[in-house]
Structure formats: C-alpha cells, structure tokens
C-alpha cells in the first residue's frame, strides 16, 4: 500500500518522460483573443498528480496520456481515460478519484466530467468505472477525511 513498509506491487515500473511546461504563445499573451480549453490544458491539470504508490507522477507512469483526454469546450464535456500500470492494480479507484477531484476543483462548473479506465486494461474495470461515475458515492468518499487526505496528498505539489 502507499507509505508503510509493505512491498510495492510493481517495484521497477516502466517510466516515461515528463512533457515540459506548455510554452506560452504570443496569442496567449494577447489580452483580446480568447483561448479555448483544449486537451493539453486538461492534460496539464492531471499530469502532475502523484501516484499513490511511487514517487512518480501519473504522466511518468503513463497512467494518463494526452491522447486519452477529450474535451469539448463548446459542449462543456471532458472525458479522461486512465491506464493502471498493471491489470490488478489495487490503486485504480484511488487514482480515478484523484483525477476526478482535481478536475472538479479546477474546471468551471458547466463541465460534465467522465473519468474511466482505458478499456481492457484492468481486471475490475467495470466495477471501478461504475464507482467513479456514481456521483453520490464520489461525494460520500470525499466526506471521508482519511480518504480525502490521501487524495490531497496525490494532488499536492511535489517537495
């Protein structure tokens, strides 16, 4: 599990490079022109979330990828697929929850969020997706102070 002395489920996982900071364009600096919310912007919100088990980010573990983020600013929808590192990863729900909380906190209320596991990459894909889609259950989970603390840890900036 996270912290403690228990053995890691996957001690030497494959790692991927972090993409750099999004370069600021001249257009973005122009006061007049609007910038729509795009896939990269959503990806930037979630890529630095910490994995609950490794001192690595979800991006470095390839749990989230920009190609698996779909946003439609006009219709106010966001869909994020995430890929657990191993099919039996016990942290899948927690990771999904962290992504969801980060998006709830960071996006305008108008957005409808859909966070789910990349099809075919986890043994209990269906059950996890169902939990993540269940508004009441997500709300209840966030009332749980212990769970909230773990989620906040995943969302905290790295020291």
């Amino acid at each position, binding site marked *: 599990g996270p912290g403690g002395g228990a053995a890691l489920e996957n001690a030497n996982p494959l790692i991927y490079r972090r993409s750099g900071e999004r370069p600021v364009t001249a257009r973005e600096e122009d006061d007049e022109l609007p910038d729509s*919310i795009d896939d990269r*912007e959503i990806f930037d919100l979630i890529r630095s979330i910490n994995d609950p088990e490794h*001192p690595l980010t979800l991006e470095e573990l390839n749990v989230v990828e920009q190609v698996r983020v779909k946003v439609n600013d006009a219709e106010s929808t966001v869909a994020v697929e995430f890929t657990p590192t191993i099919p039996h990863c016990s942290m899948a729900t927690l990771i999904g929850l962290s992504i969801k909380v980060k998006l709830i906190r*960071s996006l305008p209320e108008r957005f409808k969020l859909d966070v789910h596991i990349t099809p075919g990459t986890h043994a209990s894909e269906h059950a996890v997706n169902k939990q993540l889609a269940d508004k009441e259950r997500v709300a209840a989970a966030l009332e749980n102070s212990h769970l909230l603390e773990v989620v906040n840890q995943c969302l905290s900036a790295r020291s």
Partner: protein
Amino acid sequence: CLENTDPRTRGRGIQLLSQVLLQCYSLLQEKEVLHLVLFYENRLQDHHLVIPSVLQGLRALSMCEVLSPGLAVSVLKAIFQEVHVQSLLQLDRHTVYSIITNFMGTREEELKGLGADFTFGFIQVMDGEKDPRNLLVAFQIVHDLITKNYALGPFVEELFEVTSCYFPIDFTPPPNDPHGIQREDLILSLRAVLASTPQFAEFLLPLLIEKMDSDLQSAKLDSLQTLTACCAIYGQKELQEFLPSLWSSLRREVFQTASEKVEAECLAALHALSACLSCSVLSSDTEDLLDSFLSSILQDCRHHLCEPDMKLVWPSAKLLQAAAGASLRTYHRVTRSVLPLLLEQYTKHPQSSQRRTILEMLLGFLELQQKWGHVEEDESTLLSLRAPVCSVVFSALTDPSVQLQLVGTRALTVLGSLQGLLSPSDLELVVDHLIRLALHEEDSQSSEAAMEAAGSLAPIYPKVFSGRMVPRLEEELQSEREGESPRDHRSLRQRCLQALAAVSIHTSIVRETVPVLLQHLRKVHKGSESGNTQDMVSVCQSLHRVALQCQRDTESCWYYHQAVVPCLLAMAVQAAMQESTHPLLGKALLKEEVLAAMVPVISAATTHLSPELAAQSVSHVVPLFLEGEVTFLPQNSFPCSFQPFEDGECLEAQRRLVVLLMAFVCSLPRDVVIPQQERLLRELLVLSCSCNCPFTATTAAKCFAGLVNKHPAGQQLDEILQLAVNRMEPGLAEGPRRTQALTLLLWVRPALDGGAGESQGGRPGADSALPAQVTKALVLRYHPLSSRLTDKLLGLLGDAELGPAAADGFSLLMAESPDVLHKGCHADVRIMFRQRFFTDNVPKLVQGFHGAGPDVKANYLKGLSHVLNHLPKPVLVTELPTLLSLLLEALSCSDRVVQLSTLGCLQPLLLEAPQIMSLHVDTLVTKFLSLTSSPAMAVRIAALRCAHALTSLPTTVLLPYKARVIRALAKPLDDKKRLVRKEAVAARGEW
C-alpha cells in the same frame, strides 16, 4: 549565619558569599582561594538545599587564575563523589558543566593527570541529562575530551552510550522559546561528538545502519549526514565489517525513496565511503577493499543501465556516478565497466528517447572526467574508447530528435573540454556539426545550444574556429541565395550573426569576426531592403555581445574599441550629413531603434578601457561633436560639416547622434578628463531645453545627467547646476498661458514641417524629461540641490497636465537605467540610495496623496507604486504598517499600473508578513476577488496570485472566508485566457 542550624539560613549565607565571589574572584589571593576551596568542598556534604549556592561559589573559584595546582582535581573529585548531578535543577546542572568547562580550559594538564577517572566522572555527571541547553554544553565537553586526547581508558563504550542515546535528535523548540536553541544546533553538536573519533566506529555504524531504515525522514537524513562526516576520519579498518550492510541500506534508500533530499544525502554518503576507501593507508598484509566494494555496486546497478525505460535506471546511474566521482581510482574502475556497456546499449536501443537516457548517463560519466582535467594516457578508458564515444555523440547530433541533439551537444562540449582527447580530424567534424546545427537546424533550442557549445570550445581551439568556422559563417552571410524565401534568408543571416558573436571569445578570433560584422553592417546600410532596420539592430546586438566578451582582455578591448567606435561614428555622421542635404532620405541607420542599439555597443567598448587609452579616444570624439573635427574617422571626406549642437532644421539628423556621444562619454572611467567639459555641458543643456524632438531632448538630458554625476564637486559643478535650474524652472512654472501655449504648440508644430509629427510632446515633454534625469544624478550623490528638485517633482504630481508624466518619472528615479547612471558606466552610485529616497520622500508622497484632489490622486499612487516596485522586499516589510492603508486604498484605484504594482507589492508581503496582513484579511479578500474580473489580463493574473498567497495566512483567519473564496474563484476557472485559468486553478486548489 554560615553555622546556623536551619539549612535555609545557611544556604542564604553561602549564597551571599558566592554572589560576592562571583563579583570579585579575580581579586583573590592564592591563599584565600585555597581557604575558600577547602570550605566549599566541605560544604558539598551539606544539606541538599545548600548545594546550589555551593556550586555557584565553586564556579566563581574555578575562574580564579591563582588557583594552586591540585585544587582543580580536588574540586572535581569532590563534585563527582558528593553530588548527584542529575537530581539537581537545570540551572545547577549547568553550573557543574561550567565548572568542568572552566577547568578544562585552564587546567588541562592537571585534569589529564586524573586519567580515565575524569572521563568516568563526567559520564556519571551527564548520564540522563534532558535539557537541551545543558546538552549543548555537555556535548562540547565530550567533544573536547576526545579531540584534546583525554584518556578514555576502558570507558569508550560508556562515553558513546551516554551521548549516542540522544541520536537521532528529535527536539522541537517550544514556541516563543527565549533560549533560541534550534534543533539544528543540537544535531550539529551531537554529530561533532559522534564523528570525532574512529574509536566509536564499531558502535556507531550499526546504529546508523539501523536509523537509515527509520520511518522518520529526519532520522534518515541525520544518519546519512553523520555517516558522511565519519568517513572524513575513518579508514578502511573501521568500515570493513559494515561495508555490505552500508551498501545495501544506501542502495535500498536510493531505489525506493520519494525524496530528493534523501537521495542526495545517500549519494553524498556513498561518495564519501568510496573516497574514504580510496585514500585509506593500508598495512602490507591487508587486502584493499575498494575493488570488492565497487564490484558489489557494479553488480547491483550495472544491469539496470540496460533498461533505459525503467524506473531504476537513473537511481543506478547516480549511484555509480557518486562512487566514480570519489577518486581517480574509482573513476577508472567504474568507467572501465560502464562506458563500454553504455556504448553497446546505445547501439542496441534505436529509439531516440532511450538513446537520450543512455547518452545522458554517458554524459554524466564524461563530466566526472573533467574533474581530473586532462586525460591521462596510460589508464584512461575514455582514451581507448575515443572513437566509439565520438561516433555515438556525432550520431546523436544528426538524430531528428531535438532532445537527443541537445544532450549530444552537451556531450560534445565536455569531450572538447578534455584536452588532448579529440584528434584534429575529430575537431574538424565537431566544427562542421556545430555549423550545421547552429545555422540550419530548424529548432531554435538546438541551434542556440550549438552556438553556446561553439562559444565554450572556441577559446580552447582558436585556430580551428577562426580557420574553419568564421570563413564559413562569412560566406553564408554574404551569399545571395536564389529561390529561397526572404524570411528564411533573413533567419539564416540572423543565425550567422549570432554564431559569429558566440565564437568571438579569443582575441585571435575577434580579429577575424569584428571586420566581418562591420562589413555586413555597411552592406545592410547601403542596401535598400525594407527590413534593414531589423537587420542593423541584429548586427548591433552581435557587436554588443562581442564587446562584452572582449572586456575581460585588455588587448581585445582596445582592438575592439579602435575598430568599432570610429567605424560606427563615421557611418552615422555620413548618414546624418546625407540626410541634412537630402531630407526625407529616411536612412535606417538614423532611426531611433538602430541608434539605440548602437548605444550599448559603444558603451561596452568603452567602460573597460584603461584610462590612458580612454583619454586618447576622448580627445578625438569630443572635438568631433563640438567642432566637427572628422579627421580621425575612416572615410572622412564629407560633403558638409558636422554641427550637432548648432541650430537649424536641417541639422535634426545630426543632433540625434548626440546619443552616440552619450554612449561614449558617459561610459568613460571616472578619472578620465573630458576636454572642454564645461562647454559640452552647456551645449547639452541648451539642446535638452530647446530641441523639439523628444528623443534628442531626452538624450541630451541623459548625457548631461551622466556627466554631472561624474563631475567633481565644487564651484564649477554648482554653477552649471544653477544654470540648469534657471533654465528648467521657468519652463515648468505655473502661469495663465501654460495650457494655451501647449495647445498652440501641439497644433503649430506638425503644421510647420508638414509630416506626421514624431514629437507630439513638444516643449513640456522635453522639460519634464530633464528634471527626472538631473534629479536622479543628484539623488545618487545627495547634492544639496537634490531634495529641492525632488520636491519640485513631487509638486508636479498635483499638476493636472504634467502629473502623469511626473508620476512615471518616479520609476526613472528608482530603476537602474541601462545606458547612463549605473555602476557599469562607472557612475557614482551610493548603496542604499533607494532606501534613502524611500525614507525621505514616501511620507511626502503619502501626505500629498491625502491632500490631493480626486483627479490627481492617482498620480501619487502611481509615484508610490514605482518607488515600492524598486525597493528591496525586506525594507518593505519593515515599513509596512505606515503604508498598508495606502496600499489598500491603491487597490481601489482604477489605474492599471497602480493596481499591478500594488498587487505585486502585496503578494510577497502576504508570504513574508502573514501576521500583519491577517488584520486586513477582510479588505484583502474583497479587493483581490473583485480584481480577478479586471478587464486587463495581467491584473487578473496578479490578483489571483495574491488570492493564492492569501493561503499563507493562518488557517483560523482564513476559515471564515473559505467558502466564499472558493465560490468566487470558480468564475476565473472559466476565464477566456488560459494563463488566467492556470493561476485560478493553482489558487483554488490551494484554498
């Protein structure tokens, strides 16, 4: 009283005596001391209520210089025997430590006569000590026992136990602790004890190994740092038994840790261990353990290097590099095994991202080689692998991945810096690669990296670069390519210019590149292309960079000055004359931006001249401007005369060149005498007040200011300043016709010359440029006139017409101006002048603000904003109480500059002085939130940053606002600008 039967009364008597002794111990005679010592020793057996006062008395006696031999030992023996120290109060225990410390300071030899008994006695004294104040003293005593070679006898382990039981220190000073003992003090003083002797090794190392596995990060760090400290005094003998477990603990931590600090300390410890093993002196029958230690490291880490995608690749590489960096021997041993492996892996892995990782590791090992300077022929693995290493690096340079190219370029720089490694043919290839990347690689990062590499290698191989690179760059610069878009062509030329500047780092190269750059400038000047303004600015930028690089070397500096300054002046003078005879020619060279780009070139070519050479140059340049003396210029046959200070419409272009005079004359070292200085100052003054062109007027004022700044104090200076004031004051004076005069001027001026006016400001603009410049010159030196002129400027803030310009003038007063009046130009700048300006004038600004009418209030806030913007933050924090109310008011000001600067001031204050800011949390929250919907993006961003910084206030203060802020911050999450949304996300997440 001393014999009273009530111990309390006896105690009071002894207390009185002890207090007296503490005052007068230095006056006592030897006999008196003896008598007192015997008395006090005897009293140690008295009632426990009396003991504290007895100890005070002994402390006084322990400071006596006339203490007879033997008494110190006898006092200590008595204390060890009669007093159970740990049952005393903290203060009394402290007294005992003081007595011991005093004796150790003055009676070292006597105490050593006690042998190990003294050590044992002390162990009993400190055993069980709990108070951090006492521990600091006790640790110091133990440290002295060990380092001053007191006999430890059979008590080494006891001494270790009695100190190591505090390891690792977990002490948090209580809040409002008046003693100021920090955790760090205890950690360091205990570490000094533990790492003071190899005799502790057999007990300490197992303890450190155990604590490295602690759940507490602080315990891990302390253990690692203590281990590193021990390695400085240990040898192989002490480490031998523990090497396997030390290695496995270090490896485990580096492989598993999430903390960069822990990783860094582990690597430092491994480095120290390897270094310790490398330099241990061994007896002839001992086996050298370095090899087997390194073997186990290699065995555990090497295979991870073959998996460049996996998590453990970097931890393994870092461990190997930490060991390899310890000594030349470790370096050879590790690289002999690792370098061939990495080269093989590079070939095996075709993907760019994997190759990049492998090359980065290789680079790490190459950089270690730099530590030992040149490559030694006999042992170096690198030398034997030169060919494959070069081919790997060259292949990275031609890879399509920019990231791989960048690592390749860094590796190339390191290889080149290892003297004697690269062969002449390698070097030619290196230069060819650098030219290709610098000029033709699409990605600008890669091109810049190649130029930087060329810049660092050029001084090592000047012949190769001046012989091979410069001619190629010149050729590219001159080539007129057919079929290429003008844009591509321009960017190629741009890169050539940058590359020429980058390699101009050795005097022999400078002599090649400067003529090429000047030749190109002439060519662009003659050409009639539309975009040649930008081209000229680019050449000037390159020339500027070369000038900066030449400053380090006297010879290059003078060569550069002689080659460049007359050439630029000649081109400018010629262009200005052509403009005088044929107006509307519109020479690019005379445009303000091109002239402004020449200023730093001339300035940088001048600041580092020796006084003799500078005097030689000034004797040409000043007569050129005052008398039109052109003989020293190359190509000096001109159609008419050069008279920049004369009146006349057609001389407008010539007058502008005063900016070049300014660049030169204001950059001279202070002790260089300027010929005809008084006349020059008068001419500048007239020009600054009479010229209609704001550029020229400002320039003249700046040049005047620069010269006044360096002018020696005295009557001459006072006269010229009076002249300046006399010219300035009527121009600024109040009067019924002021506005009309301005209006008339604004209409008549463009009507007269018919074109679109570049001088919309007219006279008042020119005048208000002058006081700001001159005032600045004086503020720096605190001339008596300075406060009068500053007051004048303050007064103008209330002027509806000139107020805004005056407010902006404050930024000029506080900022470091780039071309005159800064230290680089040898200006006389007092340290702390900003603080002084602040304390002198901010009260006046505040007062002015409160007295001002609503239409001009913003001017005062703006002035204040400029002052605050340039003030060091620590000063701000201390001045905060007086200003905070004004800053809060400034938040409601509608001027964006004021809003931005106020937010910029408040943000660090929130972080640094949360207590004071907490008092205003209500206003702050309201204003910040309302500014998050400002129409200006920069203001929204600054307001969100402040809202973010609010979270550093105490939680109890914030809690009532939490819901409101989180709700309000939802709106900027949907801002139309991405940069605003980013700040909103950060701020809201923190709330």
